[in-house]
């Protein structure tokens, strides 16, 4: 599925929730249930330092598609990571580079992607795109 379609699917899912509690509960569930990254990749090198919660990201090219795995020590952050991974992982690097992140706003999580929020997610998206740029260069 294309990134855009996946994002629309996520927006659809979130539109079923009436209030923030349900949205957060869903995210916490996502955060709890997903094994996100292989322990061996939870290294200092892979840490994206947000101010408060740690975020690890690892990228691998598989058949011209970029596969991301990631984790965080904070569960809400982890839930959002799960959503980002669903949207961006297993996609062609160029598509990742071109993708926008407006759907985060649409599902009511805008505040988590504000640059003033000290949770490392802004840096994480930047990092996903940087990986995509790097691998795209490699593919060229």
């Amino acid at each position, binding site marked *: 599925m294309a990134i855009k379609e996946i994002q629309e699917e996520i927006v659809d899912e979130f539109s079923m929730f009436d209030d*923030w*509690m349900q949205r957060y*509960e869903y995210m916490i569930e996502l955060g709890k249930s997903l094994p996100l990254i292989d322990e061996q990749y939870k290294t200092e090198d892979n840490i994206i330092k947000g101010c*408060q919660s*740690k975020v690890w990201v690892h990228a691998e090219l598989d058949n011209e598609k970029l596969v991301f795995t990631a984790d965080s*020590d*904070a*569960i809400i952050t982890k839930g959002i990571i799960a959503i980002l991974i669903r949207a961006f992982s297993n996609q062609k690097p160029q598509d990742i580079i071109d993708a926008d992140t407006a759907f985060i706003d649409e599902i009511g999580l805008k505040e988590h992607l504000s640059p003033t929020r000290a949770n490392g997610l802004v840096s994480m998206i930047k990092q996903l795109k940087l990986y995509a740029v790097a691998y795209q260069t490699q593919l060229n």
Partner: protein
Amino acid sequence: MLDVQKIRKDFPILNREVNGKPLVYLDNAATSQTPKQVIDVIVDYYQNYNANIHRGVHFLSQEATDKYEQARQKIQKHFNAKKSHEIIFTSGTTHGINLVANGFSSILKKGDEILVSAMEHHSNIVPWQMLAERTGALLKVIPMNEEGELVMDAFHDLLGAKTKLVFCNHISNALGTINPIKEIIESAHTVGAAVLIDGAQAAPHIQADVQALDVDFYTVSAHKMCGPTGVGVLYGKEEWLNKLPPYQGGGEMIAEVTFEKTTYAELPHKFEAGTPNICGGIAFGAALDYMNSIGFQKIAAYEHELLKYATEELLSIEGLRIYGTAQEKTSVISFNIEGVHPYDIGTILDKLGIAVRTGHHCAQPIMDFYKIPGTVRASFCFYNTKEEVDALVEGVKRARNMLL
């Protein structure tokens, strides 16, 4: 007794709603809110007598200068400094610390020792590390115990002939511990060391008497005591302030300038280069008037009651641990819930309209000591209520249920 409902009417911001809920503001150790009595002074300044000070011949400049200097005298009186020129206006506590650290770079020699407490804010660690690097002096750490109290025996052992400076906060921002600064100052003086006390967290709760403490430097920020941001003061003993070289060059701080030589102005102007935060200084004076009109003893008694109540209520939550359980502490509660990241709790509380701080509180060494990434910190002011403590406790319970 303090009439909290009457006091709350002075703070317009407390009527705000956040995320559709009434604001419960419990981040007072980061910054306190501003009463309308202080806001009025700020508005009055810009509407009626905004002018540059100390150099104008005109009426407004004179008026602004008078008000600014009156504020300095109010601050002098509040902290019981011997002379008003021992009060240096700064942009805040960090500025005051840097001013002193910079001054000592021409006094310290290689091998001299600087003692700093284990529970300092980064702003009271980094300037001394920089000073140590510049001078070759050695930075030594006064350790703390599990309760978050300084180990005074270790302090006395560390103190020696080489000790030239001791730095310590009056109250820890992350733990709320009230440090035994009188003992620290007395002991440091027996070996001839100077002492700087970071009073940023103490000033809103305790009225420090710099002469009774015999402290060499004491530095505070206005915004933690109902004043505006961007202004504070450094108290320094006259003899020390005369000894230290100026920190920044510029207008105001000179007596005479030629290209061959500049002579510096007298205290306090020697340390006040450039146009200061005039309005801020005047508003700081108004903030002190406001707090004194309530009375520091009443404030301390009321906040102690809130602290006691909040501690008991929070401890009833399963898995909750409080960091900083010193005998002497102020109305700051740093806590975590087992198995939950503090950031997650803070996020849920925010959704409920409750403002707390989460993270390492710019005191990473303390977090390393407890081997935690950070804490949730609720800090109370005299305008907070027991009902707000209840809202916090309910919020934390709700967050716990969602997150575990």
